């Protein structure tokens, strides 16, 4: 394993120290792997609904990069690819909760669901209003598991944005949660890996692929995908993925969508831009109107080469939420 680190056992705190120093808008919660907005209004009644997301480390810039006005109030980080324990989540809830309560945005992995869910129960026991929204956007699993058990992947970033803008607009917790849930239901994602990644503590790659092999429908934790196949031109891979997403969501000609081409870490912007050009062209050819599109490393799996496509169905309000300003450093410009 070749990594620019000091000690595999301390990568998470070492990283968070760097991130907090690099971003003036971020602060670390003492004793926990939690990044907070440093500009949270001190008065609890001024905070509005606080948003918290998180999960294992290794998905950077997620989730700390989405902490900022208009997106998250805090990001909770576990060990690499491991959901945080309940203590860290509970500490984050206590740190950011104001009078209007807290929304937890959770990717649909058992560990995240259980730990955030347990922390939410404990916080409610302390009198804090907490709602939990689970994102399960991975359509790769559509033939394998029922809809509620799909994984949460890159579409989560778009859900953060929608919910963050709704919270910044001053909506109450129930309304922010409703918009987040609707956004989560409106987005489908599917990924392709060209290789594996190495968790620092494990020291070796989670799987290996042959010279010409790719893995369709992989997760964002180095876990294997749903189908191994042969490398094809970008146009063919994009076609397969879009077909799966669009048919799953029954997106038809004339509908308006946002497209996210998310790099998994090891794929350069050149390839992501080529994939994006291809995806936009294919969506247009199907008569789907691509109102917004981004490409970049938004929710990664360490240095894994590959990408995912996310397509989110839009209405006027959701488009407005995506366009709303945010100071979160990792939210992409343009669109």
């Amino acid at each position, binding site marked *: 394993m070749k990594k620019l680190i000091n000690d595999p056992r301390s990568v998470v705190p070492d990283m968070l120290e760097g991130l907090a120093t690099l971003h003036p808008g971020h602060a670390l919660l003492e004793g926990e792997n939690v990044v907070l907005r440093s500009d949270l209004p001190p008065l609890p009644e001024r905070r509005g609904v606080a948003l918290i997301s998180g999960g294992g480390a290794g998905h950077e810039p997620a989730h700390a990069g989405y902490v900022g006005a208009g997106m998250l109030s805090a990001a909770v980080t576990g060990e690499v690819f491991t*959901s945080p324990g309940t203590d860290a989540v509970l500490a984050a809830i206590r740190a950011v909760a104001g009078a209007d309560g807290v929304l937890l945005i959770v990717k649909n992995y058992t*560990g995240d669901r*259980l*730990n955030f869910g*347990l922390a939410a129960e404990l916080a409610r026991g302390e009198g804090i209003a907490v709602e939990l929204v689970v994102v399960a956007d991975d359509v790769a699993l559509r033939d394998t598991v029922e809809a509620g058990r799909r994984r949460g992947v890159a579409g989560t970033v778009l859900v953060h944005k929608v919910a963050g803008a709704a919270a910044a607009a001053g909506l109450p917790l129930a309304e922010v949660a409703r918009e987040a849930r609707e956004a989560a239901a409106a987005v489908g994602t599917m990924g392709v890996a060209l290789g594996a990644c190495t968790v620092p503590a*494990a020291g070796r790659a989670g799987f290996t692929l042959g010279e010409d092999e790719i893995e369709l429908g992989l997760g964002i934790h180095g876990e294997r995908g749903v189908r191994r196949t042969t490398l094809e031109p970008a146009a063919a891979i994009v076609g397969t993925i879009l077909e799966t997403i669009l048919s799953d969501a029954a997106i038809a000609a004339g509908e308006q969508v946002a497209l996210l081409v998310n790099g998994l870490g090891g794929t350069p912007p050149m390839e992501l831009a080529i994939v994006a050009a291809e995806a936009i062209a294919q969506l247009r050819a199907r008569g789907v109107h691509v109102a917004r599109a981004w490409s970049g490393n938004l929710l990664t799996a360490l240095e894994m080469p590959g990408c995912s496509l996310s397509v989110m169905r839009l209405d006027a309000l959701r488009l407005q939420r995506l366009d709303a300003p945010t100071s979160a450093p990792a939210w992409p410009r343009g669109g």
Partner: protein
Amino acid sequence: MADELDAVAVRAMLLQVCTRMIENTDRLTEADQAVGDGDHGIGMRRGFTAARDKLEALEPASVAEVFKTVGTAVMAQTGGASGAVFGTLYRAGATACGDHALDAATFLAFLEQGLAAVQKRGGAVPGAKTMIDALAPAAEAARAAQADGLAAMIRAAADAAQQGVQASRDMIATTGKARTLGERSLGHPDPGAISMQIQLAAMQDYVAGQRED
């Protein structure tokens, strides 16, 4: 041989559980690398190290407190699915203990209430290739051994868990990160089931050691 363990003895038994879990880090890592994401060993080490530290600092007032201490530390510090699952097992199981010493009836209640809570919390059913596939047979065997006293009951539970681990090889994961593997998860035992078995075996060994005194 004591067919009842007081809080101090239960603390010693659970310290043994912690030690065994920490010792088995690499084995659990390898098991999770085969069917999951490889973090189970390190997570269990983190959680049971926290539990050991709490236990060592504890002056136990009741058996329930000892179980709850372990569950709370594991839940708070482990992370991952298994932190919540094993944390829930010990915390929910603790409520079965009341103020009693640990005897056969209490141990059975611990397993059955823990199992029920884990199933409720995680939504997994037997056969889904989880620790439930070691815990459920263990609880069943414990019920069958109800009349045989604590030591025999723990031995029966540990044996059943071991068979559950073996049986989990033939299961297709439908929960947790291993679920995407589908049929590719066949042939490998479930890492959380192995953890469950190690914990019961550690308890069995502790009780067996007690008997030799």
